[in-house]
């Protein structure tokens, strides 16, 4: 029997109208997340991963954004939900944390004030005193030393790592079923990053929480995610379990990324593997595959690759999905030979 996914995104499209034209930030993105699991969304700058994430909570709405598609949370329609309904989901069933902990917290209020606020939005009948106790417990849980003394301090009085813990405390105070973490550790030192990722995994185990982790760091993905979606040019180009992605990547872009990261990791000196060129402009997406200018395999299939946008399709015998016209067995075995 198939489990109904906690979150299901179908054919999401997001466009922004800017003075320079229409930016196609997200193009036909579909994925699903199950309770208790972590989905990693990997991509470089301009891949559309952040916009995808903020669409889940309808944070993109504004004069300039146009969102189409379907997002279902626990079977309920998110994109079509009215203001009141979406507000009841935000911060209570789905929580989101952002990259820069320095700017995520309101500098004008104490951290206690902000955590209490996050709690009382969804528990209106709880008095401030009771909410404060709950906030203290949460600060303790996320590892803030001496929370009783520090709860009345301001964000700027904490270090980067501490601030991210406070952000996590604020986001998780209502025990959400889904946490969306947009590059939560990018701005942190590597030792602090390790602490924060551990904390998130701990809490996930406790609450059976689902996590969508957005990052550009493949190492973080390898260590924390169950499933991965690789984004490029506003599209998902590969969807796989984490093992499959790292052992048998099925899209030339994933392959290039892994190659660049791995050649950096191994100790042999000499030229690093790169992906030539730069990511495409989302203003003028080409017809056909947007990875074409940087793809080493496209020469074999130029006519199709340059005119038809590849759809995500299953790559048997694996469970992965790849948006590549050449996702044939021949291609996979070729790549596996290259890695070995």
């Amino acid at each position: 029997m198939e489990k109904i996914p906690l979150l299901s995104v179908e054919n999401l499209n997001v466009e922004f109208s800017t003075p320079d034209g229409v930016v196609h930030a997200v193009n036909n993105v579909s994925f699903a997340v199950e309770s208790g699991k972590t989905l990693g969304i990997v991509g470089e700058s301009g891949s559309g991963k952040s916009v995808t994430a903020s669409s889940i909570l309808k944070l993109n709405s504004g004069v300039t954004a146009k969102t189409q598609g379907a997002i279902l949370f626990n079977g309920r329609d998110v994109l079509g939900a009215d203001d009141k309904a979406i507000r009841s989901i935000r911060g209570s069933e789905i929580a989101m944390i952002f990259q820069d902990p320095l700017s995520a917290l309101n500098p004008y209020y104490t951290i206690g004030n902000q955590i209490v606020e996050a709690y009382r939005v969804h528990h209106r009948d709880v008095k401030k005193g009771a909410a404060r106790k709950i906030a203290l417990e949460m600060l303790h849980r996320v590892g803030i030393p001496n929370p009783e003394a520090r709860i009345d301090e301001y964000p700027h009085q904490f270090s980067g790592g501490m601030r991210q813990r406070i952000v996590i405390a604020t986001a998780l105070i209502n025990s959400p079923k889904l946490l969306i973490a947009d590059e939560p550790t990018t701005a942190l030192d590597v030792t602090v990053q390790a602490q924060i990722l551990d904390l998130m995994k701990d809490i996930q185990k406790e609450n059976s929480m689902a996590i969508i982790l957005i990052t550009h760091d493949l190492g973080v993905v390898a260590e924390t995610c169950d499933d991965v979606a690789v984004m490029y040019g506003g599209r998902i180009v590969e969807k796989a379990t984490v093992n499959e992605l790292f052992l048998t990547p099925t899209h030339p872009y994933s392959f290039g990324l892994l190659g660049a990261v791995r050649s950096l990791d191994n100790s042999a000196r000499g030229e690093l593997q790169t992906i030539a060129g730069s990511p495409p402009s989302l203003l003028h997406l080409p017809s056909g595959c947007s990875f074409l200018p940087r793809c080493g395999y496209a020469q074999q299939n130029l006519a199709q690759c340059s005119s038809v946008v590849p759809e995500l399709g299953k790559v048997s015998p694996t469970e992965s999905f790849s948006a590549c016209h050449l996702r044939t067995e021949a291609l996979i075995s070729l790549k596996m030979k290259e890695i070995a």
Partner: protein
Amino acid sequence: MSSEILLEGKSLVKYFPHGSKGIFGKSDGFVQAVDGVNLVLRKGQTLGIVGESGCGKSTLARVLTRLIEPTSGNIILDGRDITKVSGKELQSLRRDIQMIFQDPFSSLNPRHSVGEIIASPMRIQNTVPKGNEKSRVQELMELVGLNPEHYNRYPHEFSGGQRQRIGIARALALNPKVIVADEPVSALDVSIQAQILNLLEQLQHDLGLSYVFIAHDLSVVRHIADEVAVMYLGKVVEIARPEVLYSAPAHPYTKALLSAVPSATPRASHMHSRIVLQGDVPSPINPPVGCRFAARCWKAQDICVAQEPALGPQSFTSQPEEGLVACHFPENSN
């Protein structure tokens, strides 16, 4: 085997006055950003400096290039003591030692064209007659992989990776001997990082440059450096060749740092014991008296808290190539 020493830092110290006490705002202690650092850069080689935020590596970079004055200590370039030079001598010094910055977005003047940006060091130093300027700029642009036709474009028209190339071209304009690169690839995407690193290595090979390469990303430094120094709270805690440092780190902090880096291999097939350090980096304002890492070190003893360890060979039996470490109980000693 070892080439001549090109740049040397001796007991470099940089303190910043911090805060204000009382009504008259007298400073309340010092941020001891760099606290007694010795380093050596050999000709044609790359010295990597790694550390986390607050360790002092960026301050050290700026002190080496005399963008900030050291509180005490000496900087010796090519045998000359350049710590206190000023005026014309300082200006000519700038031709020998240049800097590349981290943020490709804020390190280029958005109101200057690319040509002007690359040409400005030459104009300031008067090294190239006006007529030859354009061809020299275009030569440099080609050298770093930019299209020389884009001479008149503005920074915002380029991508992050290309902007960093502009910064590199600017640094090369005066044919320096040493380039101090302060996190030159940290703000770039992974696929672009590799391009820029390849470029830097190629330039080093072709032009005989020497680099001081500062980064917080250990894998980047491992690839490009001939020697790596690990900094913690203003001090160098370990120096070694990458082959030694990354496979057998001697200082507990280095070990923890290396184990914290997530590796691009799924966890199912990779069981490693990660050392998760407790707590935060202590403040560089009132650093502890003894070893600065003692509070977070899992093997700290009384002597660690009381006495600061000096940077020296791991043990009596260790070879010079095995590097230096500042620890009372280094990891691999017998």
